[in-house]
Each structure stands twice: as C-alpha cells, then as structure tokens.
C-alpha cells in the first residue's frame, strides 16, 4: 500500500502536477490576500507570497529527478547529467531584488504611518479622491 503510493508519488507526471498546482495555489492565496486586505503591511506580505509562488514554479519546473544538483563533489566528477544551473541563478537574482523592494516598501509604510497615523489603504486620500 505504502510502496504503491510512493511509486505513484515518484512518477514524473505526479511531480509536475504537484509543483504546478501547489505553486499556483500559493500564488492565488497571495492574490486573494492582496485583493481582500486593507492593511498596507498585509498587502506587502501578500505580494511576497505571490513572489515565492513564482520562484517555486520556476525551480520546480526545471527540476529533473534523474539529474543531480549542478555541483561537483559527493561522487560527481564531471559536469554531465546535472540540472540546469541558469534557473537557479535567475531565481537567486529575483530573490534578492524582491527582498530589496519589500524592504523599501515597508520603509515607505513606516514613514507614512509616522506622518499620518494611518495603515488602512482606504483612508489614504491625500489627493482628494473618494
């Protein structure tokens, strides 16, 4: 019973489906939080969750379980049968940029709160709308 389940889990199609459905579900959780919350820090956190979902989507779709990580050592002596290193480097870049943007947004939110005492985005009407 357990072995059948593990064999099912180890199939390529199952892994692909789990990666796609899981990461996109996480993406929609983030989008839902972005659309329904009004506190500005919660909106930033929702954007971060959406970013993490995209990272998981990329890495999971370029992963091949027959290949190893692109690092020599542990018995690997040549650069053959390895996973693609380019998506890893791209996602490393994207993580750093996302972190920088998140920190900058939080600093804007902190300064806005110190100035006006508001965190609700519905009350942010300095330009006179609503």
């Amino acid at each position, binding site marked *: 019973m357990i072995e059948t389940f593990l064999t099912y889990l180890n199939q390529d*199609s199952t892994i*692909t*489906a789990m990666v*796609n*459905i899981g990461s*996109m*579900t996480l993406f*929609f959780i983030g*989008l*839902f939080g972005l*659309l*329904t*919350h*009004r506190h500005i820090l919660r909106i930033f956190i929702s954007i971060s969750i959406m970013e993490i979902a995209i990272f998981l989507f990329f890495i999971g*779709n370029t992963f091949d379980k027959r290949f190893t*990580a*692109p*690092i*020599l*050592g542990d018995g690997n002596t*040549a*650069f*053959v049968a*390895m*996973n*693609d*290193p*380019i998506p*890893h*480097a791209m996602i*490393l*870049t994207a993580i*750093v*940029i996302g972190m*920088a*943007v998140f*920190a*900058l947004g*939080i*600093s*804007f939110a*902190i*300064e806005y709160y*110190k100035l006006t005492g508001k965190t609700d*985005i*519905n009350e942010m009407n300095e330009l006179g*709308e*609503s």
Partner: protein
Amino acid sequence: MNFKRDVSIRTYSGFALSSLLVLTILNIILQNIPDKVERAGEQLLELNAQEGVANAVTSVVAYFRGFDTLGEIAVLFVAALGIGMMLSSNCKAPHKEESNFILQKASKLLFPVIMLFGVYVMIYGHLSPGGGFQGGVIIASGMLLLLISDQNFEIPHSVISALETFAGISYVLIGLIGLLVMDRFLGNFLPHDISEMGMLLSGGIIPLVYIVVGIKVGSEMSLIVQNLIKRSEDD
C-alpha cells in the same frame, strides 16, 4: 469613489472557481510540453568545466552573468539608499530600555558563531552551496541579533560606507582588469587550472568576485536592518 472592500460570499466562490479554472488550463498546457526541451544549461555546463569551479551556479552568477550581478548589487544599493533617506531623517536617540537577560547573554555567545558561519559560506561559495548573497545575509542576521539585544549598539556609518565603497570599486576593478588583460569584461585573468578543481584556491577570479559581492551585500543588509530598527524605536 469608495474603496471599501466588503467581500461577499459570491465573490469568494467566484474567485475560487476562476483560480481553479486557471490552474486546470495551466496544467493542461504544461502536461503537453514536449519531453526533450533544448536547455541552455547544457552548453554552459560544458563551458563551466574549463573554469575550474565546482559549483556551476556560482560560475553562472559571478562569471557568465557577472555583469548582471553588478547591476543587481546596484539595485540593492539603491534600495538601501532609499531606506536610509526615508528612515534616518529626524532620528532621535533610542530608548534606553534593557532587553531580556537571556537574549543579552545568548547573543554574546552566538554572534561569533554566526559571523564565522557567514564568512565560511561566503568564502566556500565556489565549492559548495552558498555564496556571497547567502553569506552576506547571514552576517546581517548576526548584526540583527546584536542590534536587538544591545540598545546602545550601533554599527558606525564610516565602517559600512568604507566596506561598501571598497567592495563596489574592487568589483569594477576586477572587471576592468579582465577587460584589459583578457578580451572581455570580467575575463578570468588569474590562473584557473582544471586539475585544482575542488580546492579553495581555484577558479581564478570567481571566488574573489563572490567574496566582494558578499562584503557588499552584508554591509548593505546590515545598514537596512539598522535603519529599520533605530527608526521604529523612536516615536
């Protein structure tokens, strides 16, 4: 115009249904991708065997896409600059409030270990998983531990700006020397013998570039953390 977000049950169910629809369509598309897709990494892995670096991701980040990494740390620098400009204005003296005893003692115990681990991850980035970005963030987390445990601790701005300037200038200098000695920006002008692959001194300029990136990321992240903490304390 009203921005109120009173979400009804109909909106919830519509959102769930539409997200399920998108998931299904995406999965159908992705299941029908042909099995053999041409990967750009194949040629890159062959090229990477000539550079004498055991970690292929490091050689992609710090060598093949080294110019992009220069732009990336420039983005990080601009973000740190913006946070400093936003938060350090009219900054008052922080509260003199003692932190927890356990936190004070444990931070003195843990800080050297965290710094050592960060420097290890940074220096061995071309041999094992890790590298400049990861090591820099670990060092910044050690700084965060000191900042939350000791209220009077402050990283001097002169040290951070000196480290950051040194790192940025040496990155560009390494690239320009590569342009002069070899044929391109960030050319690998130091000896990189394939027989030494796996040693600490291997890979030519690639470990140097990643250590420089680590110094820059560590100082910038420490500055960001310090600005956020010091600004959120005063009121």
